[in-house]
């Protein structure tokens, strides 16, 4: 899989990270589909959906955990992506990151508003999801992508990794992370930031 520098649509400082996430050819199609969606092209949006829905939904499900609610949030996320597609700006970052930022925000909003009324399930580990539509090739590519991210995560200290995972997958605020880990407030904030910086640098180096 080619992970060479992409065409200069995006500043090098950002493309570097973006192309580490998906292969370059793929990243380009995402931008094209997103821009076509902004002009109302529903077929382009369907292609976009098929390309990114497993990442969007997987993330939403991991944060939200309840499968029925996750389905709802995923729908909201895609409607939001459709609605805002013309506002995506390739200068500011990759298309995938833009979409996953929307997804993460929606998922976090959902768990935080739900937590006001019900206690969240304390089970931490996400359920194993069947991926019946995968071809062998897709599965192999996925496991390669996942392996690359796992390797990058190895660059983090255990405490950084713990804080980043609670924040990103757990949907907790840094204040809550500090409480959960029983560490001073400022420390959680710093661990999240230092952990993400290390993850970023390690993903960049892995290309």
């Amino acid at each position, binding site marked *: 899989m080619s992970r060479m520098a992409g065409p200069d649509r995006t500043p090098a400082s*950002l493309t570097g*990270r973006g192309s*580490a*996430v998906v292969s370059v050819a793929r990243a380009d199609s995402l931008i094209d589909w997103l821009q076509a969606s902004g002009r*109302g092209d*529903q077929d382009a*949006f369907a292609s976009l*959906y098929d390309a990114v*829905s*497993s*990442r969007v*939904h*997987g*993330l939403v499900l991991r944060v939200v955990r309840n499968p029925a609610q996750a*389905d709802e949030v*995923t*729908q909201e996320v*895609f*409607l939001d992506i*459709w*609605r*805002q*597609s*013309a*506002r995506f*700006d390739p*200068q*500011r*970052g*990759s298309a995938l*990151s833009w979409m996953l*930022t*929307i*997804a*993460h*925000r929606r998922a976090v*909003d959902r768990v935080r508003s739900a937590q006001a009324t019900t206690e969240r399930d304390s089970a931490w580990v996400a359920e194993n*999801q*069947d991926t*019946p*539509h995968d071809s062998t090739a897709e599965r192999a590519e996925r496991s390669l*992508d*996942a392996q*690359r*991210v796992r390797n*990058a995560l190895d660059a983090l200290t255990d405490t950084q990794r713990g804080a*980043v995972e609670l*924040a*990103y997958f757990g*949907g907790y*605020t*840094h204040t809550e992370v500090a409480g959960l880990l029983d560490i001073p407030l400022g420390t*959680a904030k*710093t661990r*999240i*930031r230092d952990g*993400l910086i290390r*993850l*970023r640098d390690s*993903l960049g180096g892995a290309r």
Partner: protein
Amino acid sequence: MSADIHSLSGAYAVDAVDGDERVLFEEHLALCPECRVEVASLREAASALADLTRAETGPDVRRAVLDKIGTVRPLPPLVQRPAYDTATEHRGIPTEEVGTVVRMPRRHVLTWAGAAAAAAVVGGVTWQQFRPQEEVQLTAAEKVIRASDAHRFQQSVDGHTMTIVRSPAMRRAVLIAEGMPAAPKGKDYQAWFDLPGQGMVSAGVVRPDASDNVMVILEGDAAAATGAGLTVEPTGGSPAPTSDPIMLIPFT
């Protein structure tokens, strides 16, 4: 720039901030190009984590999404005016255009490259080719927020913080809100300035964006106003408030 607020970039990038911190940090972001670049890069990194959790949606979800988009119009792109245009901001903009962040009438639309060049010339800034545009491009709202005499007023509405940043020197005020749900069907939010001798004068209809965020310049003379309010009005707004304010902030 406060080192303390800067260190919130990581938590902000992964939504690990509460509502108040988000507003504070976004105000900081408007002033701190370094943090904007850092947040973007940390979001890219965090996005890679989604490779660990992939899960297919069921066919029902796909069908529902593709059915629904047929009934939803994508928003127009955000366009910004060049830096020199502050004096006439929002004059002559149809009501429906006010309320989104930085939509401008067609005749003011410049391409990004053109606007950036204008900003560089006017500000005497050295334009660096590979910088994201946000570093040189300030929206009109950002200019108010970063004005040297800008003052912040806050009020909590249903647990969400509404912030007004006012610059008497620029005679402008910006309304910032987040987690603000769209107004009920058939209604709009409308902002008001309390003007001595005139009472509540419309400062424009306010419509949260698709992520329920608002950052909008209020119409009218913010320097003369002694306070600002927000009400829920019939779509398109009213000449005078017809309901009790959901927010009322005195500029004292």
